[in-house]
């Protein structure tokens, strides 16, 4: 799947319009098979963040885990280097292989999109 700069490839369900990260199988919300490639900005809000003091074997401690909520309510679990960003801050992220990484605070946003799920 192609990824343009500043964007992350996701899947979009034609039936329920959910956007979700690429994964095998059907739409995780409604189970429909009619899904297509789409993109969302590689920018999201930090909704939770923690550091693991006991990561899996071979991973240095402390190991950050950040839960992000992006456009259309797509949620991303990411790791990063350095101190955790504040909850509610907007960050940029990218995909490296199978893993998502927070790269840093988002640059100034010119326009915001209105739609967002409140959970």
């Amino acid at each position, binding site marked *: 799947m192609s990824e343009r700069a500043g964007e992350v490839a996701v899947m979009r369900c034609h039936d329920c319009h959910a956007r979700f990260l690429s994964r095998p199988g059907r739409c995780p919300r409604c189970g429909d098979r009619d899904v297509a490639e789409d993109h969302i900005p590689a920018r999201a809000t930090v909704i939770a963040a923690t550091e693991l003091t006991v990561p899996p074997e071979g991973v240095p401690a402390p190991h950050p*885990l950040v839960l992000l909520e992006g456009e259309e309510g797509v949620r991303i679990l990411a790791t990063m280097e350095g101190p955790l960003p504040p909850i509610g801050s907007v960050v940029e992220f990218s995909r490296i292989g199978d893993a998502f990484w927070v790269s840093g605070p988002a640059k100034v946003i010119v326009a915001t999109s209105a739609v967002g799920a409140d959970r």
Partner: protein
Amino acid sequence: MPAHIVAAVPGKVGRRSGSLVDLLTEVGDQALEAVGRRRVDTLIVGSMAAGLLGGVENLVPNLTDRLHLESANGLRVEAASASGAAAFHAGVTEILAGNAERVLVLAGEKMTGRSTPQVSRALALSLAPSEQAVHATLPGLAALVAQRYLSRYHVPSEAIDAVTVQMRHSAQGNPNAQFPTPVSADEIASSRPIALPLRLLHCAAISDGAAAVVLERGEGPACVLGLGQGLDALALVDRAELTSFKATRTAAQNAYEHAHLTRKEIAFGEVHDAFAPFALQSLEDLGLCGAGEAGRWFLEGRTRPEGRFPVNPSGGILGRGHPVGASGLLQIAEVARQLRGEAGSLSLPQRPSTGMAQSIGGLGAQVFVTILGNPPGGAR
């Protein structure tokens, strides 16, 4: 014809010498003695990581050998940290399907033979590939869920500490518990961070242990009244909600319907407190109180043995320990003993006529709910 529990043996939990097969044999022997070594038709064994952590596979023949169960059939069941409950559900099905008159259900885990990072890696195999790709662990994801839950419902951190305080207090009366000593809220709040807001004393320990239950066709004080199972998306980010486990809600609804009971008719429960906030969420997801209210229940003492709805009178996972594949069956064994009047120093002030057990697999992708109690007719 219904199925009922005729023997329930929660084994000693902690750092145990002996192999996984030794631990399972120990409780299996006790259970078989309790039923006079009568013929067992089926053996069901639950364990999550028998190979990776316990160093053994092919559990059924290992056990039919050690327990001298000639001519029994058997199956191994795995459902991550709910393996013990899943094994029980499979055992009940054998009776209800007419395949067996008597079933021995065993569940166990041997974890202390490996280092903590090795155990963490083994447990993380329950997680979604996308979660493993960022080296997530169960405590790490539980911490993120806890942050969302605490924030959404404005639950004070004292409510989470109160869970551990109660569990450790109750565990004092449990001769099989790994942690039969009280801890104060201060000690909990200052214990080592694991993944904030979760600290060491909010999290299940690494434990060895096993449990055994014998099921028979028939009636008694510990009949199987209802079973329920629920599933949700494997990856946390794929779920519709973060602050409630849909799998618990589904499993509970199924179990209540199967039992023809409402939540109000359940006298007490053993819920899956592998992480202290999960106890709060579980009470809510089981429909026992409203969203965000469980913290108040713990802080106000409603969940104590003498309270309105006793929760985990055995000490729960936090007090008893967490041999992961065994915990679901340990819970069921404790509920059965209360119903049968065999709970000894853990006995509730009044002998209950119904009880429930809720077991979470992994991070809540699969949950099992079990309702036990006096037969529907009332007579024993």
